[in-house]
């Protein structure tokens, strides 16, 4: 018996140590977040947690007391009762009442979360394998400008050849920027498989489903950078499509927004320009790295047989227009997306030019934006 007492005391010390450690580390619990919604969700979570802890304590105590006292080794004689309508009734009704009490605040928060409307800004979030596209929409829900957001953690960090950075796997090339103090609506959809868009600090998560437009809203008061991840299995690089949102003070946001609008007109101008081969290679390499390399690999060797290599491939050194068409229209029924929907003519020209001249591919053609436009606007 003494041994057992010691055992229990040791166990108690361990548990309390663990508890102290856990209180010290805030990554042990759900994040409170920075929006009214995320705080309401956190409160719900804590209520549920405590209700469970209390019920668990009562039930498990009864069990442990019974295990301690009602054991044969202590000479316990088994009782003969095996039914009690009163008890059965009580432990049906009481949990029912507790559940109703829990459902009330949960319903309230849910209704609040569904309260879209009155937003000052709409952003379309479009998921692709394995990146996000953010389109800033005007009042008629047409795109004012848009950009892609790719994970920017270098491969060398992932393959442990380099020390991992502070925001390992949770960093992107282009962050989504939103203003503080304004209600922002997100329209979420997908171009290929199902993904899910989640920013824990905002307390919002929604699936991006092809052919469906889900909406979601948030209102952030504190400026800052908030990080999340895709949370629906979406294929090979599901673990590598982070979400980074920067909530900016309103004035900063407005200034940034105007700059983007200006950049957008520059982009449209580029569609009618003629580029040198070097310019095309340089831009093409960038586009390739963020749109093609995750499947076809930076070295152009691909991952056969699922993702064919491009170095020396019949497409990349074959007829140029066929190559362009394949990139533009994709290959239905495979992972090869229709990049005509993702890239503009200047980017398409650059990346096709790059693929035809990199890794020892050596065609003597040059591809300009107008080649793309001519090929696909022809009747």
């Amino acid at each position, binding site marked *: 018996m003494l041994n057992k007492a010691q055992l229990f005391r040791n166990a108690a010390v361990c548990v309390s140590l663990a508890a102290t450690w856990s209180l010290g580390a805030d990554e*042990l619990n*759900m*994040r409170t977040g920075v929006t009214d919604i995320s705080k309401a*969700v956190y409160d719900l*979570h804590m209520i*549920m*947690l405590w209700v*469970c802890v209390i019920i668990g304590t009562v*039930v*498990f105590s*009864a069990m442990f007391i*019974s*295990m301690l006292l*009602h*054991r*044969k080794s202590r000479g*316990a004689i*088994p009782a003969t*009762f*095996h*039914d*009690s309508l009163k008890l*059965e009734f009580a*432990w*049906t009704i009481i949990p029912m009442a507790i559940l109703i009490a829990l*459902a009330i605040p*949960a319903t309230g*928060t*849910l209704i609040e*979360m569904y309260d879209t409307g009155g937003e000052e800004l709409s952003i379309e979030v479009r998921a692709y*394998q394995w990146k996000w596209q953010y389109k800033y929409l005007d009042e008629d829900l047409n795109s004012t400008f848009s950009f892609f957001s790719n994970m920017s953690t270098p491969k060398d960090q*992932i*393959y*442990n050849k380099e020390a991992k950075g502070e925001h*390992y*796997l949770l960093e992107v090339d282009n962050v989504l920027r939103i203003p503080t103090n304004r209600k922002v609506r997100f329209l979420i959809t997908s171009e*290929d*498989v*199902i993904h*899910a868009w989640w920013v*824990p600090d905002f*307390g*919002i*998560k929604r*699936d991006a*489903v*092809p*052919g*469906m437009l889900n909406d979601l809203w948030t209102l952030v008061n504190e400026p800052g950078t908030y990080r999340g991840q895709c*949370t*629906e*299995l*979406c*294929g*090979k690089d*599901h*673990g*590598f499509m982070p979400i980074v949102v920067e909530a900016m003070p309103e004035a900063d946001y407005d200034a940034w927004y105007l700059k983007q609008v200006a950049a957008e007109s520059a982009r449209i101008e580029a569609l009618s320009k003629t580029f040198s081969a070097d310019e095309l290679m340089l831009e093409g390499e960038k586009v390739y790295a963020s749109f093609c390399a995750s499947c076809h690999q930076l070295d152009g060797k691909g991952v056969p*047989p699922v993702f064919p290599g491009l170095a020396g491939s019949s497409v990349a050194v074959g007829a140029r227009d066929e190559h362009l068409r394949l990139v533009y229209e994709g290959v239905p*029924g495979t992972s090869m997306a229709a990049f005509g929907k993702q890239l503009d003519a200047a980017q398409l020209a650059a990346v096709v030019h790059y693929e035809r001249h990199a890794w020892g591919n050596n065609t003597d053609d040059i591809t300009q934006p107008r080649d793309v436009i001519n090929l696909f606007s022809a009747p």
Partner: protein
Amino acid sequence: MNAVLESSHDAHHHGPVNTGLKRWLFTTNHKDIGTLYLWFSFSMFLIGGVLALIIRTELFQPGLQFIEPEFFNQMTTNHGLIMVFGAIMPAFVGLANWMVPLMVGAPDMALPRMNNLSFWILPFAFTMIISTLFMPGGGPNFGWTFYAPLSTTYAPDSVTFFIFAVHIMGASSIMGSINIIATILNMRAPGMTLMKMPLFVWTWLITAYLLLAVMPVLAGVVTMMLFDIHFGTSFFNAAGGGDPVMFQHIFWFFGHPEVYIMILPAFGVVSQIIPTFARKRLFGYDSMVYATSSIAFLSFIVWAHHMFTVGMPLAGQLFFMYATMIIAVPTGVKVFNWVSTMWQGSMTFETPMLFSIAFVILFTIGGFSGLMLAITPADYQYHDTYFVVAHFHYVLVPGALFSIIAAVYYWLPKWCGRMYDESLGKIHFWLSFIGVNVTFFPQHFSGLAGMPRRVPDYAMQFADFNMISSVGAFLFGFSQVFFLYVIIKAIKSGQPASDRVWEGAHGLEWTIASPAPYHTFTEPPVFDDSEVHS
């Protein structure tokens, strides 16, 4: 075929008609088939476990060390498929095969030849599933929930084999459940009314109806996939006017009852074992039956709680939230009944009892996190994170799996006439108990901190929890190999077991000799109330 016919004609035989491989291939004996199911499920359990350890090895540290993401996805997918369809479900069917006839006093299952068939198609299904891993393009990599269009338009070619394998498993389950229903409803000993049946028989009766109801739905959804992939339909293809969300509705209409298919027989097992070792009748037998039935009913109307983030209208979200919360009531009733059974009993703590008590505690913890997941607004934060992984592993590992292990220790002496080594059994219990908690408890924390499930790599703040989890997983994996040793040792050299085996055991299965003769209850037994127990 002749041998089969002869064996059923020559009922006076005392042992199997055939010997060697032929005995097992052509057997129509419920005990042989039960044994086959149990060994098959154990080997699947080991294979699924190896896949789990590959996953935990990669996740031991941040970064990619051992396997590529594409292969990682194949591991998570096949781990899930093999454990659910290859380990847990066949293990319960094996227990049903052995025990249902013995518990109701029947000479065999009602449809012995179909019984043979329903087992022997399973190895083909799983050989096919496992062989996909070696096909060009790799095996299924879309998660065990195989959401379209990832599992259709974007799937590797091997998906067709996966679909065929699911059809075979489904056929096996349907045949198995028809057999169990027919046996229970038609072949009970005189005097054993429905409300005097052992609870294990009750829970299996209800489970068999669940299987009958939902396995065709699963077959339907994989057939729709097949048509999308090969015959140009667009059930789940948005570009062709289909709806990927419809896939999830159909899948979870199967999938949620499936969850209860894996836990109701566990309730039954624990309801047999706790009264035995508390030496006291099961508390609230009637309410146990009603609770099981209401859980089964509710399991059909809660499926969309797996899909709270998919974008349903508010009214839908509220309905599924409320319906899901209600499940806590009958589940609570069960837990309260088990505790009341223990209360003022005269308990001893042999290995089956230890596993059953751990079941009650840890399953309840899994139930608590389930209740938290039911709260839609909070679910947005939990959904598809490691919190969910922790939740369903608590329900399936120290839940379903512990009950199977408990059942094996409890009935093994009856099966082979020999006792396992009690101290080894206890060591196995404590290793498993510690292993399971070290593995899965930290996953609650990494989930709350924001770690998504099904990722091959993770941000730095999740590193500690993952390392602990991986250590626990290896401990747990090792202890199940130890389990194999304990079992083999018992079969080979265990002490002879008495007929009653356990002091507090009641039920027809304990009235026959240990080991159970090859043919039992060829004459209907006398069933009197002294064997009514639970």
